[in-house]
């Protein structure tokens, strides 16, 4: 069975609720690093994870974001500059055609989003991507 993107979106949204992460009420680099290490058991190598998101958010309250990592069994998503950086963790069973998930997140300000993947063989990988949240209004 081939899932459509729409199905995947619904699936991802359902999965996203499963694994919320508890972190302190403020975000610091330390808190983000601690969350990554706790999830991955150390600092993962960079690469092997794709984050698809707009360079500049059209609406910081609902920013579409898609993460994928070939062969991942789970991907954790963090918004490194939010008061609470934890967004969620997507878990992929063998029934998933690919390890890819989309959701929408709220970003308080310009910041990096971080995706950390755990692979079936136990290895880990991560990616970072800056998303700008801007006032706007003067282009043209």
């Amino acid at each position: 069975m081939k899932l459509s993107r729409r199905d995947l979106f619904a699936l991802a949204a359902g999965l996203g609720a499963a694994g919320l992460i508890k972190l302190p009420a403020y975000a610091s680099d330390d808190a983000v690093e601690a969350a990554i290490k706790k999830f991955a058991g150390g600092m993962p190598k960079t690469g092997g994870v794709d984050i698809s998101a707009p360079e500049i958010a059209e609406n910081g309250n609902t920013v579409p974001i898609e993460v994928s990592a070939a062969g991942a069994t789970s991907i954790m998503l963090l918004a490194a500059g939010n008061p609470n950086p934890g967004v969620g963790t997507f878990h992929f069973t063998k029934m998933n055609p690919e390890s890819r998930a989309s959701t929408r997140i709220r970003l308080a300000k310009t910041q990096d989003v971080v995706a950390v993947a755990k692979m079936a063989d136990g290895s880990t990988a991560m990616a970072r991507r800056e998303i700008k949240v801007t006032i706007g209004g003067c282009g043209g």
Partner: protein
Amino acid sequence: MLSRRDFLQTSFAASAIVGVSGFGNWAKLSAQQKLTQNQLLDFETTGNVTLVHLTDCHAQLKPVWFREPSINIGVGEAAGKPPHISGEAFLEAYGLTSGTPEAYALSSVDFVAMAQEYGRVGGFDRISTILKSIRSDRPDALFLDGGDTWHGSMTALKTQGQDMVNVMNALKPDAMTSHWEFTYGIDRVTEIVDGLEFPFLGANIFDSEWNEPAYESHKIFERGGVKVAVIGQAFPYLPIANPGWMFPNLSFGIREERMREVVDQVRAEGAELVVLLSHNGFDVDRKMARRLPGIDVILSGHTHDALPEPVVVNDTLIVASGSHGKFVSRLDLDVREGGVKGFKYRLIPVLADVIAPDPELSALVDAQRAPFAEDLAAVIGKTESLLYRRGNFNGTWDDLICQALLEEREADIALSPGFRWGPSLLPGQDITREDIYSATAMTYPNVYRSEMTGAFIHTIMEDVADNLFNPDPYYQQGGDMVRVGGMGYTIDVSKPIGERITDMVLLKTGEAINPDKTYIVSGWASVNEGTEGPPIYDLIERYIARQGTVSMKPNTAVRMAGG
């Protein structure tokens, strides 16, 4: 495909024939008062496919004056490269001589004197003559409109773009893409697009609910036995730079991965020539060309740059065709065995006194304007100074607008958006109501008056500066720096966001702006729904009428730091 080295050799050979030297020839002829339409249009038809590019005309149906920027700074990989050179440096880079018509068309050097000598530029009846000439050489030439076509004049505003739709339909474009078109609101865009006989392309326009394509991404044409794919890319930051509430269910963005998919798709469909009709802005197009293989030609729009030769990035030619109807680009391509084997290019300056108007189009243009003739012609005042807008930090038109905002709304500080559209006016010219609209016509014109803290004003300045000077082009929105009245500042474009703007000073007292203090700020073109205040064009008219004659002094309140 050609190897990169072969391609470069081909391109240099081609530009040696029709690039700089071809340009220089007609320049000399003009200096001897012998410049004719034939020389402007002279072109040895080459290869099997011809592309004609017009972009960012901003609804200027009639010939105008248009001064190119004297300051156009590039950062990051674009620093010091075309189009980020201006004035004498631009002339030097392209081997052009000041005083010649190409120097007049392409640079700000001696603009007023050159304008008096060579006259106005653009006009759709002249553009029609050029198109007819090209089509007589190559009847199946593809005519591609890069957008910002339905917006920017009184008649476009009052007819919600209908005047431009009528005139463009007569010129029969093969495809278009968009930006300001969407500021008429989604219902009006849909109404027009449903009636167009050519595709309205935007690979990067998505339904925001399901994140699925909302418009056609591309069209494949058969020209000269070649399958030509034209992919459209609308302005990526429409919902941020313009009021997103006017087209609430659409999402845009650069969407590089989507572009990669569409390029792969059209190649799979057999396209031998892939053309990107883009409203990305030049630096974004340059980055996209570097990162995405498979695009042969990018017809670049949005940032209003005019370059006499294509910029070559890997195997991609990037063409920049200026704005306001001042130029039409012709690109002939030799496409064989699935690849581009050679090209010839000419950026044709639409010198209105040299190119004969097409009477049919003159009549059509006049018919669009006739219902508004009295309004258009109303003389409101006079200017003793050159009024222009283009440039990174300020222009005399915007200085005048800021003065009007400060006085009419009794504000401490005025903010005027750094738009790149709006023609120039020469010293001694009357200022008509049409001229005021050509600098301000828009569907969200209300002039607000509100209180802002010094800290918030600084945040705005930093935010806009980062939209212009972020070293990564994908984070740039185009446009120029917000224009400021009543306040001076220093800018260091090499710094990161938060550190570029310093020494903000309230000009009327000479005191430093206090982050905690509240100031009265007036501005226009707010993207927020429900902004209240008089329309900017009415406010400017009142101010100019009261002044009678305006005279602008050089702006010394914006200072550049760090070189």
